[in-house]
């Protein structure tokens, strides 16, 4: 596989996404709002508890809340590809540009990888922007009220550095597969929503677990998601049929 070819496809898609206001605003809105909303909820909850707790207890409660909200950024990384990756092949179908694209000397793997990169970069980037807003707000509060910066911690580092990109890749791959097999963007987005439901469920469950060390759990989950990423890439290559896309495209 020639990665430079995938990069050509990716840069073209990124250029198209930049010009699509619906994609651009949808992509920015969710992480930006959550980046603001999560710390507001966390700080409000902590402030109401502050008078009845010691500093040590408040720090412990704050850490629990921060870890919970940090987990939710993984969910955002899973949701965003349903907006953008659903456009990858359906967008080409709508512009009727798929036939000339498939006629170029580019392999299926190069096309799929390029489409995936184009969806991954803005999704993970937007998630990080939301997480950055959250981190700054929390640290400002904790610095003033507890005298320590609560983020980054080990769990935050694993979630942001490992889990978020891995989940994003998983969601991107699933949505690119869906996009190559349907003819309508809304159908692609709805199906994409179903696909990420197990990821959301998993993260919500993981964030409520108290009997197992959170960091260990995050590492185990990351390993599982990484394996799923690899499996899904091969599945997407196996299921991507130029001929089927062209002949069944209405």
């Amino acid at each position, binding site marked *: 596989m020639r990665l430079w*070819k995938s990069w*050509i*496809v990716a840069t*073209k898609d990124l*250029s*198209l996404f930049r*010009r*699509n206001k619906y994609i651009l605003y949808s992509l920015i809105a969710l992480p930006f709002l959550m980046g603001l909303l999560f710390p507001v909820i966390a700080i409000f909850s902590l402030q109401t508890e502050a008078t009845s707790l010691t500093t040590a207890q408040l720090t412990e409660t704050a850490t629990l809340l921060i870890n919970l909200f940090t987990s939710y950024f993984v969910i955002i990384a899973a949701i965003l590809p349903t907006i953008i990756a659903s456009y990858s092949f359906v967008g080409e179908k709508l*512009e*009727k*540009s*798929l*036939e*000339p*694209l*498939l*006629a*170029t*000397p*580019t*392999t299926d793997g190069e096309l799929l990888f390029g489409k995936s990169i184009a969806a991954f970069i803005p999704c993970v980037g937007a998630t990080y922007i939301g997480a950055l807003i959250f981190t700054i707000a929390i640290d400002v509060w904790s610095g003033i009220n507890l005298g320590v910066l609560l983020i980054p911690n080990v769990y935050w580092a694993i979630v942001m550095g490992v889990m978020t990109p891995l989940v994003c890749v998983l969601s991107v791959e699933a949505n690119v597969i869906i996009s190559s097999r349907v003819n309508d963007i809304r159908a692609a987005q709805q199906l994409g929503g179903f696909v990420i439901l197990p990821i959301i469920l998993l993260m919500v469950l993981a964030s409520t677990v108290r009997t197992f060390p959170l960091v260990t759990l995050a590492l185990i989950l990351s390993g599982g998601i990484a394996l799923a990423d690899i499996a899904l890439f091969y599945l997407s290559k196996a299921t991507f049929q*130029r*001929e089927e896309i*062209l*002949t069944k495209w209405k």
Partner: protein
Amino acid sequence: MIETENLTRKFGDLTAVENLTLKVDEGEVFGFLGPNAAGKTTTVRMLCCLISKTSGKARIGDFEIDREADCLAIRKMVGLLPENVGLYETLSAYKNLDFYGRLYEVPDQKRQGNIEHLLKLLGIWDRREDAVGTFSKGTKQKIAIARALIHDPQVLFLDEPTANLDPEASKTVRDFILELKKEKRTIFMNTHNLDEAGRICDRIAILKTKLIAVGSPEDLERSTSGRKTVVHLESVTDAVLAAVKQLSVVKNVRTSENKLILGIDNPEKDNPQLVRAVVKAGGDVQFVTELRSSLEDVYLKLVREAEVQ
């Protein structure tokens, strides 16, 4: 340059193309005529390695269409103008061409040169930074042709290049194809436009799932009714009629007002003898012309015959 042998494609129970055998020479402009759903687009897609064949053989240059490795080489050496232009509407004309040039692995400098050359040739250079969505249908079609040529392909597949265009835009595109013809590129053109095919193509094939006929436009025009010579006279007399009937080269004769319509296999050779006989019999010759069926007549006749079969 393009060769097919019993090329067949089925979609389930439906046969789209059946036992297509043809050969297109290097530098030839080959027209592919046929009604809707005749298998023209399917043939082009098979030849461009976009879809597989069910049976038979086909090659472009030295490459077979059913070999995975050959397909990448084929895609590199052919340019495709699909039925729908399929340009990225929000990208500029330049960026559209640049994207495809990069995918076709055209080196930077050559790519920039090719884009400039093609856009100038098509009169779009001044609007190169405008989004494609702001262009007219005809201009979009021109950009799509430029896209098919960005990597300087040896073979060009044009699927309905003037479909849905107004007469002026059609003429611009047609003139451009004629320019390409001068460059001796092999051009395989699907079209419904018989007049266009007659004017541009060196040879024409008529397809209706199966290949019905193939030949030069002139050969096809002659094929259904044979060659006919029309002699316009001051008046058709019995003596003139008797004189031409005696000639062995005349296969059949009929009259229409002051004209003699004669079936002659080789008019280039036999018409002088015919004219001499008419003059000798006292006929006053005004004009001698050739009567041909139009390509449209031939096309309709052959397609209807194929439908009946």
